[in-house]
Protein backbone atom coordinates (compact mmCIF):
# COMPACT_ATOMS: atom_id res chain seq x y z
CA UNK A 1 0.00 0.00 0.00
CA UNK A 2 2.96 2.32 -0.53
CA UNK A 3 0.66 4.43 -2.56
CA UNK A 4 0.36 7.89 -1.22
CA UNK A 5 3.36 9.49 -2.86
CA UNK A 6 3.43 7.61 -6.15
CA UNK A 7 2.34 9.76 -9.07
CA UNK A 8 1.29 6.77 -11.24
CA UNK A 9 -1.66 6.20 -8.95
CA UNK A 10 -2.84 9.69 -9.90
CA UNK A 11 -3.84 8.38 -13.32
CA UNK A 12 -7.34 7.72 -11.97
CA UNK A 13 -8.22 11.32 -11.42
CA UNK A 14 -10.63 12.11 -8.63
CA UNK A 15 -11.29 14.79 -6.13
CA UNK A 16 -13.39 17.34 -8.04
CA UNK A 17 -15.35 19.51 -5.62
CA UNK A 18 -18.49 21.36 -6.66
CA UNK A 19 -19.98 24.02 -4.45
CA UNK A 20 -23.56 24.87 -5.46
CA UNK A 21 -24.93 28.04 -3.79
CA UNK A 22 -23.56 26.86 -0.45
CA UNK A 23 -24.96 28.76 2.50
CA UNK A 24 -24.46 28.42 6.21
CA UNK A 25 -26.52 30.22 8.82
CA UNK A 26 -25.76 29.80 12.51
CA UNK A 27 -28.65 29.80 14.94
CA UNK A 28 -31.31 30.03 12.20
CA UNK A 29 -34.60 31.66 13.19
CA UNK A 30 -33.08 33.51 16.14
CA UNK A 31 -29.68 35.19 15.76
CA UNK A 32 -29.44 34.30 12.05
CA UNK A 33 -25.70 34.76 11.72
CA UNK A 34 -24.90 34.24 8.04
CA UNK A 35 -21.37 32.83 7.86
CA UNK A 36 -21.26 31.64 4.27
CA UNK A 37 -23.50 33.09 1.59
CA UNK A 38 -23.98 31.61 -1.84
CA UNK A 39 -20.70 30.01 -2.75
CA UNK A 40 -20.79 28.54 -6.24
CA UNK A 41 -17.44 27.24 -7.38
CA UNK A 42 -15.92 24.25 -9.09
CA UNK A 43 -12.57 22.93 -7.95
CA UNK A 44 -11.11 20.66 -10.61
CA UNK A 45 -9.56 17.32 -9.82
CA UNK A 46 -5.94 17.92 -8.88
CA UNK A 47 -6.36 21.67 -8.62
CA UNK A 48 -4.74 23.71 -5.86
CA UNK A 49 -7.31 26.25 -4.81
CA UNK A 50 -6.63 28.90 -2.19
CA UNK A 51 -9.28 30.99 -0.44
CA UNK A 52 -8.07 34.31 0.95
CA UNK A 53 -10.09 36.33 3.41
CA UNK A 54 -9.81 38.17 6.72
CA UNK A 55 -9.80 36.19 9.96
CA UNK A 56 -13.28 35.19 11.04
CA UNK A 57 -14.76 35.81 7.59
CA UNK A 58 -16.43 32.41 7.37
CA UNK A 59 -13.88 30.54 5.28
CA UNK A 60 -13.27 27.94 7.97
CA UNK A 61 -17.03 27.42 8.15
CA UNK A 62 -16.97 26.64 4.44
CA UNK A 63 -14.12 24.18 4.91
CA UNK A 64 -15.95 22.51 7.81
CA UNK A 65 -18.91 22.09 5.48
CA UNK A 66 -16.78 20.32 2.89
CA UNK A 67 -15.10 18.23 5.59
CA UNK A 68 -18.49 17.18 6.95
CA UNK A 69 -17.93 18.54 10.46
CA UNK A 70 -20.84 20.95 10.31
CA UNK A 71 -24.05 20.59 8.26
CA UNK A 72 -24.71 23.35 5.72
CA UNK A 73 -28.04 25.18 5.70
CA UNK A 74 -28.35 25.87 1.98
CA UNK A 75 -27.11 24.66 -1.39
CA UNK A 76 -25.13 21.52 -2.00
CA UNK A 77 -21.55 20.23 -1.98
CA UNK A 78 -20.52 17.47 -4.36
CA UNK A 79 -17.37 15.37 -4.54
CA UNK A 80 -16.88 13.70 -7.92
CA UNK A 81 -20.57 14.18 -8.67
CA UNK A 82 -21.79 12.71 -5.40
CA UNK A 83 -23.57 14.86 -2.87
CA UNK A 84 -21.54 14.95 0.34
CA UNK A 85 -23.35 17.81 2.05
CA UNK A 86 -26.81 19.31 1.72
CA UNK A 87 -29.32 20.84 4.14
CA UNK A 88 -31.04 18.11 6.10
CA UNK A 89 -28.59 15.53 4.80
CA UNK A 90 -26.35 14.14 7.47
CA UNK A 91 -22.87 15.63 7.38
CA UNK A 92 -20.35 12.81 7.44
CA UNK A 93 -16.60 13.31 7.62
CA UNK A 94 -14.66 10.78 5.62
CA UNK A 95 -11.03 9.87 5.09
CA UNK A 96 -11.35 10.76 1.38
CA UNK A 97 -11.10 14.44 2.41
CA UNK A 98 -8.72 14.81 5.31
CA UNK A 99 -8.31 18.09 7.17
CA UNK A 100 -5.04 19.58 8.41
CA UNK A 101 -5.86 22.05 11.14
CA UNK A 102 -4.77 25.58 11.95
CA UNK A 103 -3.02 24.76 15.22
CA UNK A 104 -2.18 21.20 14.39
CA UNK A 105 -4.00 18.21 15.77
CA UNK A 106 -1.41 15.48 16.14
CA UNK A 107 -2.44 13.28 19.05
CA UNK A 108 -0.01 14.17 21.85
CA UNK A 109 -0.31 10.70 23.40
CA UNK A 110 0.90 8.93 20.26
CA UNK A 111 4.35 8.92 18.72
CA UNK A 112 4.83 10.35 15.23
CA UNK A 113 4.69 6.94 13.56
CA UNK A 114 1.60 5.96 15.57
CA UNK A 115 -0.05 9.21 14.53
CA UNK A 116 0.68 8.56 10.86
CA UNK A 117 -0.55 4.96 11.09
CA UNK A 118 -3.78 6.07 12.79
CA UNK A 119 -5.94 6.39 9.67
CA UNK A 120 -5.20 2.97 8.12
CA UNK A 121 -5.64 1.33 11.55
CA UNK A 122 -8.99 2.88 12.47
CA UNK A 123 -10.34 2.34 8.97
CA UNK A 124 -9.27 -1.32 9.35
CA UNK A 125 -7.51 -0.98 6.02
CA UNK A 126 -4.26 -2.40 7.41
CA UNK A 127 -3.34 -4.45 10.46
CA UNK A 128 -1.52 -2.52 13.14
CA UNK A 129 2.00 -3.86 12.36
CA UNK A 130 1.54 -3.32 8.62
CA UNK A 131 0.20 0.19 9.14
CA UNK A 132 3.15 1.06 11.36
CA UNK A 133 5.60 -0.29 8.74
CA UNK A 134 3.86 1.68 6.02
CA UNK A 135 3.88 4.83 8.15
CA UNK A 136 7.54 4.43 8.97
CA UNK A 137 8.60 3.98 5.37
CA UNK A 138 6.46 6.91 4.25
CA UNK A 139 8.06 9.09 6.94
CA UNK A 140 11.49 8.00 5.78
CA UNK A 141 10.70 8.84 2.18
CA UNK A 142 9.77 12.41 3.08
CA UNK A 143 12.85 12.78 5.31
CA UNK A 144 11.07 12.44 8.66
CA UNK A 145 12.42 8.98 9.56
CA UNK A 146 14.46 10.40 12.42
CA UNK A 147 11.50 11.67 14.38
CA UNK A 148 9.31 8.60 13.85
CA UNK A 149 9.48 7.50 17.48
CA UNK A 150 9.31 10.95 19.08
CA UNK A 151 6.20 12.35 20.73
CA UNK A 152 4.80 15.43 18.94
CA UNK A 153 5.53 17.74 21.89
CA UNK A 154 9.24 17.23 21.21
CA UNK A 155 8.97 18.60 17.65
CA UNK A 156 8.91 22.13 16.26
CA UNK A 157 5.59 23.38 14.89
CA UNK A 158 6.96 23.16 11.35
CA UNK A 159 7.88 19.48 11.70
CA UNK A 160 4.57 18.81 13.44
CA UNK A 161 2.71 20.23 10.46
CA UNK A 162 4.76 18.15 8.02
CA UNK A 163 3.94 15.03 10.03
CA UNK A 164 0.31 15.99 10.00
CA UNK A 165 0.34 16.22 6.21
CA UNK A 166 1.94 12.78 6.00
CA UNK A 167 -0.77 11.51 8.37
CA UNK A 168 -3.34 12.85 5.91
CA UNK A 169 -1.60 11.60 2.76
CA UNK A 170 -1.14 8.00 3.93
CA UNK A 171 -4.90 7.61 3.50
CA UNK A 172 -4.56 8.50 -0.16
CA UNK A 173 -7.40 11.02 0.16
CA UNK A 174 -9.09 12.55 -2.87
CA UNK A 175 -8.92 16.00 -1.34
CA UNK A 176 -6.70 17.71 1.20
CA UNK A 177 -8.44 20.40 3.22
CA UNK A 178 -5.87 22.74 4.72
CA UNK A 179 -7.19 25.23 7.26
CA UNK A 180 -4.47 27.89 7.61
CA UNK A 181 -1.96 25.17 8.42
CA UNK A 182 1.00 27.55 8.63
CA UNK A 183 -0.65 30.29 10.64
CA UNK A 184 1.24 29.61 13.86
CA UNK A 185 4.66 29.38 12.17
CA UNK A 186 7.26 32.13 11.98
CA UNK A 187 8.11 33.60 8.58
CA UNK A 188 11.21 31.44 8.01
CA UNK A 189 9.58 28.13 8.95
CA UNK A 190 6.62 29.16 6.83
CA UNK A 191 8.77 29.65 3.76
CA UNK A 192 10.31 26.17 4.22
CA UNK A 193 6.86 24.68 4.64
CA UNK A 194 5.71 26.30 1.40
CA UNK A 195 8.51 24.52 -0.46
CA UNK A 196 7.53 21.25 1.29
CA UNK A 197 3.90 21.60 0.39
CA UNK A 198 4.72 22.50 -3.22
CA UNK A 199 6.88 19.36 -3.47
CA UNK A 200 4.13 17.20 -1.96
CA UNK A 201 1.60 18.72 -4.34
CA UNK A 202 3.78 18.18 -7.40
CA UNK A 203 4.36 14.56 -6.32
CA UNK A 204 0.75 13.67 -5.56
CA UNK A 205 -1.41 16.14 -7.54
CA UNK A 206 -4.13 15.86 -4.91
CA UNK A 207 -6.94 18.36 -5.04
CA UNK A 208 -6.07 20.92 -2.37
CA UNK A 209 -8.53 23.32 -0.77
CA UNK A 210 -6.33 25.76 1.10
CA UNK A 211 -7.53 28.51 3.41
CA UNK A 212 -5.36 31.45 4.39
CA UNK A 213 -5.38 35.14 5.19
CA UNK A 214 -1.96 35.54 3.57
CA UNK A 215 -2.22 36.70 -0.03
CA UNK A 216 1.47 36.03 -0.86
CA UNK A 217 1.14 32.47 0.37
CA UNK A 218 -2.00 31.93 -1.68
CA UNK A 219 -0.45 33.23 -4.92
CA UNK A 220 2.77 31.27 -4.44
CA UNK A 221 0.98 27.97 -3.84
CA UNK A 222 -2.29 27.93 -5.73
CA UNK A 223 -3.58 27.50 -9.27
CA UNK A 224 -6.47 29.80 -8.47
CA UNK A 225 -6.98 32.27 -5.65
CA UNK A 226 -10.50 33.07 -4.48
CA UNK A 227 -10.80 36.34 -2.58
CA UNK A 228 -13.60 36.02 -0.05
CA UNK A 229 -15.60 38.90 1.37
CA UNK A 230 -15.62 39.29 5.10
CA UNK A 231 -18.55 37.74 6.95
CA UNK A 232 -20.75 36.62 5.41
CA UNK A 233 -18.23 34.97 3.10
CA UNK A 234 -19.05 35.50 -0.57
CA UNK A 235 -16.87 35.00 -3.63
CA UNK A 236 -15.52 38.47 -4.32
CA UNK A 237 -12.91 37.79 -6.95
CA UNK A 238 -11.26 34.82 -8.63
CA UNK A 239 -7.70 35.08 -9.85
CA UNK A 240 -6.00 32.45 -12.03
CA UNK A 241 -2.32 32.06 -11.13
CA UNK A 242 -0.33 31.25 -14.27
CA UNK A 243 3.07 30.98 -12.60
CA UNK A 244 4.83 27.85 -13.91
CA UNK A 245 5.40 24.79 -11.76
CA UNK A 246 7.57 23.64 -10.06
CA UNK A 247 7.44 26.83 -8.07
CA UNK A 248 9.84 28.21 -5.54
CA UNK A 249 9.98 31.03 -3.01
CA UNK A 250 12.17 33.01 -5.46
CA UNK A 251 9.11 33.66 -7.61
CA UNK A 252 7.75 35.91 -4.88
CA UNK A 253 10.12 38.61 -6.11
CA UNK A 254 9.29 38.14 -9.82
CA UNK A 255 7.43 40.73 -11.85
CA UNK A 256 4.71 38.21 -12.74
CA UNK A 257 4.09 37.49 -9.04
CA UNK A 258 3.93 41.17 -8.17
CA UNK A 259 1.55 41.86 -11.06
CA UNK A 260 -0.77 39.13 -9.79
CA UNK A 261 -0.56 40.48 -6.29
CA UNK A 262 -1.27 44.03 -7.45
CA UNK A 263 -4.37 42.88 -9.32
CA UNK A 264 -6.09 41.60 -6.16
CA UNK A 265 -4.38 43.49 -3.37
CA UNK A 266 -7.06 46.18 -3.36
CA UNK A 267 -9.86 43.62 -3.17
CA UNK A 268 -8.18 41.84 -0.25
CA UNK A 269 -7.37 45.08 1.51
CA UNK A 270 -10.91 46.36 1.18
CA UNK A 271 -12.30 43.29 2.93
CA UNK A 272 -9.61 43.40 5.60
CA UNK A 273 -10.52 46.99 6.33
CA UNK A 274 -14.22 46.15 6.52
CA UNK A 275 -13.48 43.33 8.97
CA UNK A 276 -11.25 45.63 11.00
CA UNK A 277 -13.87 48.40 11.20
CA UNK A 278 -16.53 45.94 12.25
CA UNK A 279 -14.23 44.50 14.86
CA UNK A 280 -13.82 47.98 16.30
CA UNK A 281 -17.54 48.55 16.41
CA UNK A 282 -18.14 45.24 18.10
CA UNK A 283 -15.61 46.08 20.75
CA UNK A 284 -16.99 49.58 21.37
Amino acid at each position, binding site marked *: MAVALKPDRVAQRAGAISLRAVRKVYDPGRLDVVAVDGWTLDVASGEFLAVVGPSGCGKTTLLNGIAG*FDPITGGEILLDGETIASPGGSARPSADRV*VVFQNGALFPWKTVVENVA*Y*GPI*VQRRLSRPLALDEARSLLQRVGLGEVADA*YPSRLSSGVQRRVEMVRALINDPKVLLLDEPFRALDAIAKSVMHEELLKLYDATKKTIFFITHDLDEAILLADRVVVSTTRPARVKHILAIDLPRPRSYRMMASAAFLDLKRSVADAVHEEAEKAFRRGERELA
Partner: protein
Amino acid sequence: MNVEAAPSPAGLRARNRTRPVPGREVASAAALRGSAGIATFLALWQLGVVLHLPLLAKIPTPADVAAAWLSLLRDPRYYLDWLVSFRRVFGGFVIAQALGIPLGLLMGWKAAFRSLTFPVFEVLRPIPPLAWVPLSILFWPTPESSITFVIFLGAFFTVLINTLAGVRAIDERYVRAAISLGATPAIVFRRIILPGALPSIFTGMAVGMGITWSVLVAAEIIAGRSGLGYLTWEAYVAGSFPTIVVGMISIGLAGYLSSALVRIVAARAMPWSKRF
Protein backbone atom coordinates in the same frame (compact mmCIF):
# COMPACT_ATOMS: atom_id res chain seq x y z
CA MET B 1 12.63 -1.16 13.07
CA ASN B 2 14.77 -0.56 10.02
CA VAL B 3 15.51 2.90 11.40
CA GLU B 4 18.25 1.43 13.57
CA ALA B 5 20.41 0.81 10.53
CA ALA B 6 20.44 4.50 9.60
CA PRO B 7 23.31 6.46 11.15
CA SER B 8 21.53 9.64 12.09
CA PRO B 9 18.71 8.13 14.19
CA ALA B 10 21.40 6.29 16.13
CA GLY B 11 22.97 9.67 16.78
CA LEU B 12 19.61 10.94 17.94
CA ARG B 13 19.30 8.07 20.39
CA ALA B 14 22.82 8.69 21.66
CA ARG B 15 21.84 12.27 22.43
CA ASN B 16 18.79 10.97 24.23
CA ARG B 17 20.94 8.67 26.30
CA THR B 18 23.21 11.46 27.47
CA ARG B 19 20.33 13.78 28.28
CA PRO B 20 19.22 12.28 31.64
CA VAL B 21 22.65 12.89 33.20
CA PRO B 22 22.31 16.64 33.87
CA GLY B 23 18.75 15.87 35.02
CA ARG B 24 20.12 13.40 37.53
CA GLU B 25 22.60 15.99 38.80
CA VAL B 26 19.77 18.43 39.35
CA ALA B 27 17.81 15.68 41.12
CA SER B 28 20.68 14.80 43.47
CA ALA B 29 21.27 18.48 44.28
CA ALA B 30 17.56 18.76 45.11
CA ALA B 31 17.79 15.61 47.27
CA LEU B 32 20.75 17.08 49.11
CA ARG B 33 18.88 20.31 49.77
CA GLY B 34 15.83 18.32 50.86
CA SER B 35 17.87 16.35 53.43
CA ALA B 36 19.42 19.59 54.68
CA GLY B 37 15.92 20.99 55.12
CA ILE B 38 14.79 17.99 57.14
CA ALA B 39 17.95 18.12 59.29
CA THR B 40 17.41 21.83 59.98
CA PHE B 41 13.80 21.17 60.92
CA LEU B 42 14.82 18.44 63.38
CA ALA B 43 17.52 20.67 64.89
CA LEU B 44 15.08 23.57 65.38
CA TRP B 45 12.56 21.18 66.93
CA GLN B 46 15.12 19.76 69.40
CA LEU B 47 16.33 23.27 70.22
CA GLY B 48 12.78 24.57 70.78
CA VAL B 49 11.94 21.80 73.23
CA VAL B 50 15.28 21.99 75.09
CA LEU B 51 14.96 25.79 75.46
CA HIS B 52 11.38 25.38 76.76
CA LEU B 53 9.92 27.72 74.14
CA PRO B 54 6.21 28.45 74.81
CA LEU B 55 3.81 25.78 73.50
CA LEU B 56 6.68 23.41 72.83
CA ALA B 57 7.19 22.43 76.45
CA LYS B 58 5.10 19.24 76.34
CA ILE B 59 6.35 18.13 72.92
CA PRO B 60 8.74 15.18 72.96
CA THR B 61 12.17 15.81 71.46
CA PRO B 62 13.23 14.17 68.18
CA ALA B 63 15.50 11.94 70.24
CA ASP B 64 12.57 10.72 72.39
CA VAL B 65 10.54 10.12 69.23
CA ALA B 66 13.39 8.16 67.67
CA ALA B 67 13.69 6.00 70.77
CA ALA B 68 9.93 5.32 70.82
CA TRP B 69 10.06 4.49 67.13
CA LEU B 70 12.91 2.02 67.61
CA SER B 71 10.99 0.17 70.28
CA LEU B 72 7.87 0.16 68.09
CA LEU B 73 9.90 -1.29 65.22
CA ARG B 74 10.41 -4.39 67.36
CA ASP B 75 6.66 -4.71 67.89
CA PRO B 76 4.88 -6.78 65.20
CA ARG B 77 1.64 -4.90 65.89
CA TYR B 78 3.22 -1.75 64.43
CA TYR B 79 3.67 -3.46 61.04
CA LEU B 80 0.15 -4.77 61.27
CA ASP B 81 -1.06 -1.18 61.76
CA TRP B 82 0.72 -0.16 58.56
CA LEU B 83 -0.75 -3.10 56.71
CA VAL B 84 -4.28 -2.50 57.97
CA SER B 85 -4.19 1.22 57.12
CA PHE B 86 -2.79 0.58 53.64
CA ARG B 87 -5.40 -2.09 53.01
CA ARG B 88 -8.20 0.28 54.02
CA VAL B 89 -6.84 3.16 51.95
CA PHE B 90 -6.21 1.11 48.85
CA GLY B 91 -9.49 -0.79 49.18
CA GLY B 92 -11.51 2.42 49.27
CA PHE B 93 -9.28 4.12 46.73
CA VAL B 94 -9.44 1.33 44.15
CA ILE B 95 -13.23 1.05 44.41
CA ALA B 96 -13.44 4.85 44.03
CA GLN B 97 -11.39 4.70 40.81
CA ALA B 98 -13.29 1.71 39.48
CA LEU B 99 -16.60 3.58 39.83
CA GLY B 100 -15.48 7.21 39.49
CA ILE B 101 -13.45 6.97 36.27
CA PRO B 102 -16.08 5.20 34.12
CA LEU B 103 -18.84 7.43 35.53
CA GLY B 104 -16.78 10.57 34.88
CA LEU B 105 -15.97 9.44 31.33
CA LEU B 106 -19.61 8.72 30.62
CA MET B 107 -20.73 12.04 32.10
CA GLY B 108 -18.17 13.91 30.01
CA TRP B 109 -19.00 12.01 26.83
CA LYS B 110 -22.83 12.00 26.96
CA ALA B 111 -24.49 15.34 27.68
CA ALA B 112 -27.84 13.69 28.48
CA PHE B 113 -26.26 11.42 31.10
CA ARG B 114 -24.39 14.42 32.51
CA SER B 115 -27.50 16.54 32.98
CA LEU B 116 -29.25 13.54 34.57
CA THR B 117 -26.55 12.74 37.12
CA PHE B 118 -24.59 15.93 37.70
CA PRO B 119 -27.05 17.61 40.13
CA VAL B 120 -27.11 14.54 42.38
CA PHE B 121 -23.32 14.46 42.60
CA GLU B 122 -23.09 18.21 43.07
CA VAL B 123 -25.31 18.01 46.16
CA LEU B 124 -23.53 14.96 47.60
CA ARG B 125 -20.02 16.23 46.87
CA PRO B 126 -19.79 19.10 49.41
CA ILE B 127 -20.73 16.74 52.27
CA PRO B 128 -17.42 16.06 54.04
CA PRO B 129 -16.62 12.32 54.05
CA LEU B 130 -16.52 12.38 57.86
CA ALA B 131 -20.11 13.58 57.98
CA TRP B 132 -20.97 10.19 56.50
CA VAL B 133 -19.42 8.31 59.44
CA PRO B 134 -22.50 8.06 61.70
CA LEU B 135 -24.74 6.95 58.86
CA SER B 136 -22.23 4.48 57.49
CA ILE B 137 -21.70 2.90 60.92
CA LEU B 138 -25.46 2.35 61.06
CA PHE B 139 -25.67 1.25 57.46
CA TRP B 140 -22.70 -1.09 57.02
CA PRO B 141 -22.60 -4.41 58.90
CA THR B 142 -18.97 -4.17 60.11
CA PRO B 143 -16.76 -1.25 61.26
CA GLU B 144 -14.27 -2.32 58.60
CA SER B 145 -16.74 -1.86 55.75
CA SER B 146 -17.88 1.50 57.11
CA ILE B 147 -14.26 2.73 57.24
CA THR B 148 -13.65 1.56 53.67
CA PHE B 149 -16.86 3.27 52.58
CA VAL B 150 -15.88 6.61 54.09
CA ILE B 151 -12.45 6.37 52.45
CA PHE B 152 -14.12 5.50 49.18
CA LEU B 153 -16.20 8.69 49.43
CA GLY B 154 -13.08 10.74 50.05
CA ALA B 155 -11.55 9.70 46.73
CA PHE B 156 -14.67 9.10 44.66
CA PHE B 157 -15.94 12.64 44.07
CA THR B 158 -12.46 14.00 43.40
CA VAL B 159 -11.71 11.47 40.69
CA LEU B 160 -15.22 11.77 39.26
CA ILE B 161 -15.05 15.54 38.92
CA ASN B 162 -11.50 15.47 37.55
CA THR B 163 -12.34 12.79 34.99
CA LEU B 164 -15.40 14.73 33.89
CA ALA B 165 -13.40 17.95 33.59
CA GLY B 166 -10.66 16.09 31.71
CA VAL B 167 -13.09 14.79 29.10
CA ARG B 168 -14.70 18.18 28.66
CA ALA B 169 -11.34 19.90 28.26
CA ILE B 170 -10.28 17.68 25.34
CA ASP B 171 -9.74 19.89 22.32
CA GLU B 172 -12.43 19.42 19.69
CA ARG B 173 -9.63 19.37 17.08
CA TYR B 174 -8.47 15.92 18.22
CA VAL B 175 -11.96 14.51 17.96
CA ARG B 176 -12.44 16.06 14.53
CA ALA B 177 -9.04 14.89 13.32
CA ALA B 178 -9.85 11.34 14.43
CA ILE B 179 -13.26 11.37 12.74
CA SER B 180 -11.73 12.88 9.64
CA LEU B 181 -9.25 9.98 9.55
CA GLY B 182 -12.11 7.50 9.70
CA ALA B 183 -12.56 6.75 13.40
CA THR B 184 -15.95 5.51 14.62
CA PRO B 185 -17.49 6.96 17.82
CA ALA B 186 -16.37 3.87 19.78
CA ILE B 187 -12.79 4.36 18.59
CA VAL B 188 -12.94 8.07 19.38
CA PHE B 189 -13.98 7.20 22.93
CA ARG B 190 -11.26 4.62 23.45
CA ARG B 191 -8.39 6.26 21.55
CA ILE B 192 -9.08 9.98 21.99
CA ILE B 193 -11.34 10.60 24.98
CA LEU B 194 -9.65 8.11 27.30
CA PRO B 195 -6.00 9.12 26.71
CA GLY B 196 -7.00 12.78 26.42
CA ALA B 197 -8.56 12.66 29.88
CA LEU B 198 -5.72 10.68 31.48
CA PRO B 199 -3.67 13.65 32.76
CA SER B 200 -6.73 15.02 34.51
CA ILE B 201 -7.68 11.56 35.83
CA PHE B 202 -4.25 11.18 37.42
CA THR B 203 -4.48 14.65 38.93
CA GLY B 204 -7.74 13.50 40.49
CA MET B 205 -6.05 10.32 41.73
CA ALA B 206 -3.16 12.25 43.31
CA VAL B 207 -5.51 14.66 45.08
CA GLY B 208 -7.88 11.84 46.02
CA MET B 209 -5.02 9.82 47.51
CA GLY B 210 -4.18 12.73 49.80
CA ILE B 211 -7.80 12.98 50.92
CA THR B 212 -8.08 9.26 51.66
CA TRP B 213 -5.28 9.41 54.24
CA SER B 214 -6.78 12.33 56.12
CA VAL B 215 -10.15 10.58 56.07
CA LEU B 216 -8.59 7.29 57.16
CA VAL B 217 -7.05 8.72 60.31
CA ALA B 218 -10.31 10.26 61.46
CA ALA B 219 -12.27 7.14 60.58
CA GLU B 220 -9.86 4.92 62.51
CA ILE B 221 -10.07 7.18 65.54
CA ILE B 222 -13.87 6.98 65.46
CA ALA B 223 -14.54 3.42 64.38
CA GLY B 224 -11.27 1.50 64.26
CA ARG B 225 -9.50 -0.96 66.52
CA SER B 226 -6.23 -0.90 64.57
CA GLY B 227 -4.26 1.06 62.02
CA LEU B 228 -1.89 4.04 62.10
CA GLY B 229 -4.65 6.53 63.00
CA TYR B 230 -5.79 4.29 65.85
CA LEU B 231 -2.17 3.89 67.00
CA THR B 232 -1.85 7.67 67.27
CA TRP B 233 -5.09 8.00 69.20
CA GLU B 234 -4.32 5.07 71.48
CA ALA B 235 -0.94 6.65 72.36
CA TYR B 236 -2.76 9.86 73.30
CA VAL B 237 -5.18 7.96 75.52
CA ALA B 238 -2.28 6.12 77.13
CA GLY B 239 -0.36 9.39 77.59
CA SER B 240 2.63 8.17 75.55
CA PHE B 241 3.54 11.41 73.82
CA PRO B 242 6.55 10.24 71.76
CA THR B 243 4.39 7.45 70.26
CA ILE B 244 1.81 10.06 69.17
CA VAL B 245 4.49 11.73 67.09
CA VAL B 246 5.70 8.40 65.73
CA GLY B 247 2.12 7.68 64.63
CA MET B 248 1.88 11.08 62.95
CA ILE B 249 5.15 10.70 61.10
CA SER B 250 4.17 7.18 60.04
CA ILE B 251 0.95 8.55 58.55
CA GLY B 252 2.94 11.25 56.76
CA LEU B 253 5.32 8.65 55.33
CA ALA B 254 2.47 6.37 54.30
CA GLY B 255 0.73 9.24 52.52
CA TYR B 256 3.95 10.22 50.79
CA LEU B 257 4.57 6.65 49.62
CA SER B 258 1.01 6.35 48.30
CA SER B 259 1.30 9.61 46.34
CA ALA B 260 4.66 8.50 44.95
CA LEU B 261 3.00 5.29 43.76
CA VAL B 262 0.31 7.30 41.94
CA ARG B 263 3.01 9.43 40.32
CA ILE B 264 4.96 6.36 39.17
CA VAL B 265 1.85 4.78 37.67
CA ALA B 266 1.00 8.10 35.98
CA ALA B 267 4.47 8.42 34.45
CA ARG B 268 4.22 4.84 33.16
CA ALA B 269 0.75 5.32 31.74
CA MET B 270 1.56 8.64 30.04
CA PRO B 271 5.07 8.56 28.58
CA TRP B 272 4.17 11.58 26.47
CA SER B 273 3.35 13.83 29.41
CA LYS B 274 5.77 15.81 31.52
CA ARG B 275 3.23 16.78 34.14
CA PHE B 276 4.02 13.96 36.57
